[in-house]
């Protein structure tokens, strides 16, 4: 059952899909932010985190923060390039929304089932670099400039391991279509036993590790958070942004984490499929999003766990890691995957 069956015309379909995407991004950002940033980080640091807002363990904290940001004064620095300054957060968040378009939540529960889904997702994810550069330059602030230049170098450098890691998955699945990749994992067999399907993390563990490291860098999270180094640049390229413009960046950051975790779950953990239920069943349109959500939380747990534990790499060490280690390892991974795919 897809929206096409409902026969409501392309205008309404488009409207419904837009609303879903635009609503799910902030919702995902909120859930991720609350669970991991507010609660998991706090407990890892021997404290409780917000407890009062909303009564039960402070669940209202982030929503309250959002309302607070909305009602703040809109301050733009005097020397800033106003048009570019205003557009920058939108560009950053734009790439998140566009990535979300191909993420499947069920056999038919996807906004657009593109044949080049993986290619499109990775291509569109690099749009955020432009937004970061715009933000840093338009802020007329030396700290912001430093931060955005670091960010540009870092984000471009880590695009390559990200893409190369995913190529291994594409070779193994034989398709770039995300729906196809999930079906391959759901219907696959481990040495002849089909009970659990064949999540690609088992064979593509190197690719998974590379993807996680590269995603961490793409999200500017520690250990790769030179662009927003808290103790040096105090939010780097975002330093002049306040109020709802900063809210955009915040939603962008956690929304993108949500989407990258979703991509990792889809490519490596089997997406919305569950072991013992037939993947093509209509019931998966309802169960699928929930299953995907659980997997997203698992992947996000790993991302945020590393975020709160490690210090940050210096800019040149970061670049050395990408160019001298991650890219060669990913190339070897592609070689091995290709060879094994032909052999078996």
């Amino acid at each position: 059952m897809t929206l096409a069956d409902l026969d409501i015309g392309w205008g309404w379909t488009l409207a419904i899909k837009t609303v879903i995407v635009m609503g799910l991004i902030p919702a995902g950002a909120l859930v991720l932010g609350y669970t991991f940033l507010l609660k998991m980080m706090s407990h890892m640091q021997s404290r409780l985190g917000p407890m009062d807002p909303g009564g039960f363990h402070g669940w209202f904290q982030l929503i309250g923060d959002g309302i607070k940001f909305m009602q703040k004064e809109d301050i733009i620095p005097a020397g800033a390039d106003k048009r570019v300054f205003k557009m920058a957060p939108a560009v950053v968040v734009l790439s998140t929304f566009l990535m979300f378009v191909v993420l499947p939540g069920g056999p038919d529960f996807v906004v657009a089932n593109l044949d080049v889904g993986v290619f499109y997702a990775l291509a569109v994810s690099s749009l955020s670099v432009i937004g970061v550069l715009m933000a840093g330059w338009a802020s007329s602030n030396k700290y912001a400039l430093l931060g955005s230049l670091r960010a540009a170098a870092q984000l471009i450098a880590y695009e390559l391991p990200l893409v190369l890691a995913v190529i291994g998955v594409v070779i193994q699945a034989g398709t770039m279509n995300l729906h196809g990749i999930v079906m391959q994992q759901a219907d696959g067999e481990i040495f002849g036993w089909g009970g659990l399907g064949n999540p690609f993390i088992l064979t593509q563990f190197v690719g998974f590790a590379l993807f996680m490291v590269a995603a961490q860098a793409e999200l500017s999270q520690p250990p790769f958070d030179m662009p927003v180094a808290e103790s040096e640049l105090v939010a780097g390229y975002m330093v002049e942004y306040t109020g709802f413009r900063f809210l955009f960046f915040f939603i962008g950051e956690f929304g993108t984490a949500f989407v990258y975790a979703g991509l990792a779950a889809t490519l490596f953990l089997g997406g919305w499929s569950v072991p013992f239920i037939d993947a093509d069943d209509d019931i998966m349109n309802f169960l699928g999003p929930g299953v995907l959500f659980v997997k997203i939380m698992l992947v996000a747990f790993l991302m945020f766990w590393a975020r709160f534990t490690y210090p940050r790499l210096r800019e040149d060490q970061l670049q050395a890691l990408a160019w001298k280690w991650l890219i060669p390892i990913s190339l070897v991974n592609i070689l091995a995957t290709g060879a094994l795919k032909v052999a078996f």
Partner: protein
Amino acid sequence: MTLGTRPAGFDVDPSLYRHLADAQVNVELDTGDMILNLGPQHPATHGTLRLVVRLDGERVVASDVVIGYMHRGYEKLTEFRTYPQITTLINRIDWLSSFANEVPFIHAAEQLMGVEAPPRALYIRTVLTELSRIATFVLFLGEMGLQVGAITPAFYGFRDREYVLNAIEAATGGRFHPNFNRIGGILTDLPWGWIAETRESMRKILKSCDDFEDLVVANPIFQQRTRSIGIIPAELGAAYGVSGSNLRASGVDWDLRRDGKPYLAYNDLDWKVWTHPDGDSFARYWVRLQETRESARMVLQLLDNLPAGPVMAKVPRIIKVPEGEVWVNTENPLGEMGYYVVSKGATGPFRVKIRTASLSNVSIAPWLLRGVYVPDVITVLASLYFILGDIDK
């Protein structure tokens, strides 16, 4: 701009060919220098320190330290106050290790008076000094991790500091500013149960040091950020007046508790001075970690051997310190702190000169910061560990 090799007799004006720069392999890009103000308000400067750096891209070409934003006029304040009042004020010079600030001053007054504190008072003073050393260092272990980018160790640092601060509060009444030393001894004795509780706190501190070792010291990213960064050569450090753990991390085996004039109860203890040969930021972190453990062990020894007796010597009610001058310096957590007290026989000193460790420690910063990257500026400043109240007095 060089154009590489060119045929003999081929003289060329380089500016005509600037547009070919991309085709060249070895081209010096002429970028202008940027002056960045790590201003008085900045999360990485430990207070109101201003660092003006000239950057070439991300490299520091030159830097300058501007201090004085927190000058409170301590030496002038001491001219018009009595000894007990000054003891209260000097707690606030280095506010993290507040008890240790009082010790050299009271010692100076006691030397001028010819009074010696009874052994129990000396032991309790040593315990509280070592507790303040642990409090300062445990905070350093946490917040250097924060400056390098790991947000979690900072919270562990503050959590562990609470154990020590609660112990100091139970004994003296004040968490940060004990004001417990008096000429001739200490104010009063310890409350019932304090020794057992402090023993328990020391065990927690020792376990927490192991956590810091696993979380920070053993972390390859931390080591990459701090090894070979900000190396202080031993002779240069000594020439600049750098003292304390910074000098010991450059391999200099010098500790005023053991090598200076004997004070407090250090001679009765079995303890070790920790040094590290490298002199980089990692060495400074490592030395302070070991010294924290050593201080916890020293406190346990002191508590085991605490002598019984009075805590105050026989001193008159209104204390007038006889005429004279004396210089006393001690091994404070941040380095060497000293007081030169000039007394003219009144209830308060005539002049007090305060030598603080952080002023000398931060004076080496411009030399250290030549040619490092901007992130390394933060690492170096964090590893020197100065407190603005200590610099500016």
